[in-house]
């Protein structure tokens, strides 16, 4: 008996040997696969972040306007000065409000997309949700300054609906109102909500997509009314998606420095404060200390969410 081996492999012996070695030595393969991205991630992302955090302990001499390498906790202490703490509170309040609003608006849309939308409708909604994200963020924000201005379309609509007096009353509410929509916290809130809404809808929609319909049917079958099914089955299963979305809206609002400059009343936000400190003032250490604030807040938020069992369903 004679058997013939047909060699279909035309590659060079070296390449073949190399492939076979990779196939046998899984660890070597993983090492080659992961080293470049891990270097990029480690050096560029985490490295620069730690460099920044390290600088938050440097000393800023307000007389010479110079930064020295002497380590101090003074920058962190000054975060609690009345003016600085105001900035943090102002930003945090807006971030919470925007997160709640995007969740309340985003959930029904995501729910409709998942449960009721036909293929075509789903496609339409995906594009409708994503389309604003294709346009430049600055352009959109400037567009909103026009929309919200007194000659803008929103005022025009409100006047024609005869609701001017209602708007005036709303604008007189302290903390929310202002002289005009464009200079009020309400206007700023509307723009933030508009800009970050897709970041809330998409994770919720992905989470809803993963909930099998028969769990909702099982709940109804066991006697749960729709509200009970929502609270006891749907919401707990989708909550990780809501948390994921709110991390986006929350942290993006906390760090934003464009919208607070263009829309709403004067008064710094964390983002604008960092921008000012590292730019015109040159107080890099305080700017660095301010960037630690959103990181800490997100961390607290996540541990609270974890404690409520938000990630149990993952």
């Amino acid at each position, binding site marked *: 008996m004679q058997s013939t081996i047909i060699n279909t492999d035309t590659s060079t012996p070296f390449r073949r040997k190399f492939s076979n070695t990779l196939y046998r030595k899984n660890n070597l393969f993983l090492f080659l696969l992961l080293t470049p991205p891990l270097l990029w991630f480690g050096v560029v992302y985490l490295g620069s972040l730690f460099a920044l955090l390290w600088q938050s302990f440097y000393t800023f001499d307000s007389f010479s306007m110079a930064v020295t390498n002497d380590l101090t906790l003074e920058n962190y202490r000054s975060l609690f000065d009345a003016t600085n703490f105001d900035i943090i509170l102002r930003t945090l309040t807006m971030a919470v409000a925007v997160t709640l609003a995007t969740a309340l608006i985003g959930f029904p849309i995501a729910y409709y997309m998942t449960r009721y939308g036909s293929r075509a409708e789903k496609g339409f909604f995906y594009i409708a949700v994503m389309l604003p994200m294709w346009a430049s963020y600055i352009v959109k924000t400037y567009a909103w300054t026009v929309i919200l201005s007194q000659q803008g379309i929103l005022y025009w609509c409100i006047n024609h609906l005869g609701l001017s007096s209602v708007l005036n009353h709303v604008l007189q509410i302290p903390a929310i109102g202002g002289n005009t929509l464009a200079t009020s916290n309400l206007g700023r809130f509307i723009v933030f909500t508009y800009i970050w809404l897709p970041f809330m809808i998409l994770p919720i929609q992905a989470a809803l997509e993963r909930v099998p319909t028969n*769990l909702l049917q099982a*709940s109804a079958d*066991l006697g749960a009314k729709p509200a009970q099914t929502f609270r006891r089955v749907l919401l707990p299963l989708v909550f990780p998606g809501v948390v994921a979305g709110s991390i986006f809206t929350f942290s993006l609002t906390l760090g934003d420095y464009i919208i607070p400059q263009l829309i709403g009343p004067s008064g710094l936000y964390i983002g604008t404060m960092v921008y000012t400190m590292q730019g015109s003032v040159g107080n890099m250490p305080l700017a660095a200390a301010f960037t630690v604030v959103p990181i800490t807040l997100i961390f607290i938020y996540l541990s609270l969410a974890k404690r409520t069992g938000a990630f149990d369903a993952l």
Partner: protein
Amino acid sequence: MVAISNAFTAVEFSTVSRHYGDVRAVDDVSIAVAEGEFFSMLGPSGSGKTTCLRLIAGFEQPSMGSIKIFGKEAAGTPPYEREVNTVFQDYALFPHMNVVDNVAYGLRVKGITKPECYKLAEQALEQVALAEYGQRKPGELSGGQRQRVALARALVNKPRVLLLDEPLGALDLKLREQMQLELKTLHKKLGITFIYVTHDQSEALSMSDRVAVFSRGRIEQVDTPRNLYMNPKTSFVADFVGTSNVIKSALAQQLTGRNQSFSIRPEHIKLETNELNDKQNDIIKVAGEVVDIQYHGATSKVEVSVGNQMLFIVLSNTELSEAELPKISQKLNLCWSRNRMVMLENQVI
């Protein structure tokens, strides 16, 4: 005077249809399931049996017709207002709750106090021999255990009708046979109506009081397992329930002189021997050629071409030695007694 339909009828379909666009998932179905009955709905996938079950549960609403549950019109009422509970095909256990919370769910949403709920849930878990598993998550259980949790979760609500949607489909053969036995015992013990959907004809035959055979959204036959097997009314039933040879009219004409299809079970066809010769009139004889032989342990399945049709015969390996079995392409004569033939209503397969 309010006309009350039969008090002993648990679920009654009167000319029920469910259409999806042009697709008739359920087409003009009328059935009555008696209280306490183990009723199976059998059919291939897409035959409408699961849709019927979902119509009873309330996940689907009929396009036409009426569904009565214990004499009350159910069409239009939501699932949470029906006295039925479902065991789902893939169990549909809530992944974010532990086992005992899953079982207690139905009681909790009805507003029963927490201690009472958990007491009943623990009892239900004991009933399915899972008392120690209450604190586990469904993801930590095996398929058979999940199956039992799903059963306990439905039964704890004391439904008057239990709907089972291919509940054993995902289990391996041994476990399936064990669960069949357990379900049957449970049914006897509880005395409630079981409506059982399956595509496995042997499961339906062995467990049910009555079986409805579905094909293309319609009911082919509703009967006891024995009658379904012995007296199938249509060629579909003859073919689907057990294995059967359906002799189409052309060959039937030649053999019986009647232009009507009939079915004959493989085990009723014999190789021609001299013993049968005395009662010639009752015997049908036919010549054929062996095409294939499959060994199945206790039996051998022999495929014989007769005219332009294939017939299956089943021969016992305990009665015949290997040498006595027919060989491929061997010519042989088959025979069967006339009274084993079942005449079929329609001739379309």
